[in-house]
């Protein structure tokens, strides 16, 4: 094993990890600011200029809180729950291509931790594992409401994963590969998959709202019915981990949507920009564009949260099973027919 390779990957992993944590941290701030602006308020503005230090203050508060572990809970699983939620949220970004290969001192370095040929399935798997954190936490709390919420989370994730998987199948018919790097490379300049798969994108987006337990699908943490849901018995930083994992999940699914459907680091006119900026700055500019897309999605997540009320449980299930899954299947059929016609005539 080449030491340079290890160092290179280690740096990349550290940077990506730091970036996703910082983005998740400032998502909490952005969420409150966006909520405030959408409701004609100002939002947090006391900690530092424009309240920019608010996430730090929240973090300190979370660490300083008393930690309570209910005596009737299953202690080991109670501790594992938040850790698992956090872990599953964090490892999802490993296969994302953050930019084109970058040239530093004549050495070409890929801006991707690993380009496994089942990248898409890997992300799918990791996202599905995320529900275990909620499930275990809710069950280990030994509390009716937590358990109900955990069951809701599990059934919701399973129902929406089906539609999500089906929408991805239609995408795979177009791309013919599971490797995220190739998928992004196919979408060079403006050939974004969203143009070929608008319905698939819509289904995928709705499902990723459900997968990340974001409003309007935040039934697992519904305050009115479940007293806050699966993290009801959690306090201190363990609660913080759950809340934080939700924001990292939001970041990851924004990233996946930008990668799969909005061309990742591609943007119109990138070949021209590459000749101007050179082999070092051009990939970084591409990454910048990529992050802009991600931020746009994160903003959209928040915008939706402060617009649409929470679905009722039966509405959620109706939407998942009776609307999204048939639509996704129809999408596969139409895509298949169109591809067959295009290839044969």
């Amino acid at each position, binding site marked *: 094993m080449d030491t340079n390779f290890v160092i290179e990957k280690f740096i990349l992993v550290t940077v990506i990890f730091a970036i996703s944590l910082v983005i998740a941290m400032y998502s909490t701030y952005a969420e409150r600011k*966006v909520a*405030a*602006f*959408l*409701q*004609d*308020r*100002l939002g947090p*503005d006391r900690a530092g200029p424009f309240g920019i230090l608010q996430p730090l203050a929240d973090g300190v508060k979370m660490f300083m809180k008393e930690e309570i572990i209910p005596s009737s809970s299953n202690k080991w699983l109670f501790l594992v729950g938040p850790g698992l939620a956090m872990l599953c949220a964090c490892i999802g970004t490993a296969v994302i291509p953050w930019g084109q290969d970058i040239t530093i001192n004549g050495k070409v370095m890929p801006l991707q931790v690993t380009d496994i040929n089942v990248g898409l399935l890997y992300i799918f798997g990791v996202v599905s594992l995320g529900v275990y954190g909620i499930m275990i936490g809710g069950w280990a709390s030994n509390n009716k409401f937590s358990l109900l919420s955990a069951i809701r989370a599990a059934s919701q994730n399973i129902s929406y994963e089906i539609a999500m998987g089906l929408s991805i199948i239609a995408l795979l018919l177009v791309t013919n590969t599971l490797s995220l790097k190739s998928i992004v490379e196919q979408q060079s300049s403006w050939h974004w998959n969203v143009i070929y798969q608008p319905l698939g994108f819509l289904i995928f987006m709705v499902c990723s709202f459900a997968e990340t337990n974001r409003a309007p699908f935040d039934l697992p943490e519904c305050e009115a019915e479940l007293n806050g849901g699966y993290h009801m018995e959690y306090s201190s930083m363990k609660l913080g981990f759950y809340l934080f994992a939700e924001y990292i999940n939001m970041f990851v699914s924004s990233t996946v949507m930008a990668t799969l459907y909005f061309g990742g680091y591609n943007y119109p006119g990138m070949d021209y920009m590459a000749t101007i900026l050179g082999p070092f700055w051009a990939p970084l500019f591409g990454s910048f564009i990529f992050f802009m897309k991600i931020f746009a999605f994160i903003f959209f997540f928040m*915008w*939706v949260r*402060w*617009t*649409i009320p929470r679905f009722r449980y039966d509405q959620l299930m*109706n*939407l998942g099973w*009776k*609307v999204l899954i048939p639509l996704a299947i129809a999408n596969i059929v139409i895509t298949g027919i169109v591809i067959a016609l295009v290839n044969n005539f």
Partner: protein
Amino acid sequence: MESLSNKKKVLEQKSLNLAERMYLPVIAKGLATTISHFFKKSATIKYPEQEREFSLNWRGMHSLKRDEEGRERCTACGLCALSCPAEAITMIAAERKNDEKHLYREEKYAVVYEINMLRCIFCGLCEEACPKEAIYLDGPIVPADYLRKNFIYGKDKLVEAPLEVK
């Protein structure tokens, strides 16, 4: 049977059509509404730094006035305490000494004048009752505190600042 009010609203239960079941048109409408608020000016006043303008007849903290020569106007007649519906005002009167003529306007003055701000209801009856125009509720909002005893305001907090000697 005729209903008591003439209002009649016939509720019809219609099943949703496909577009409504997908929720998309209404969601788009809702998103448009919220984003239009994103660009509106917020009505917030950042309180400790900014203050909303008070109306002219707004009643705030009391102040005990001085006359044009800087002497305290209060003569400790006790009418304010008598008129106070909340019984928030207490005072102890004393006779003015000869060498105190520059301090107090009348021959009798209040040695102790205390208002309990927790009892006060800011009705303004004391200012109406005062024959000497010595008390007015023209101050700012009474600040918050942690201890009850700190809400009993004595003359140190109530009496106007002395006139500046020019």
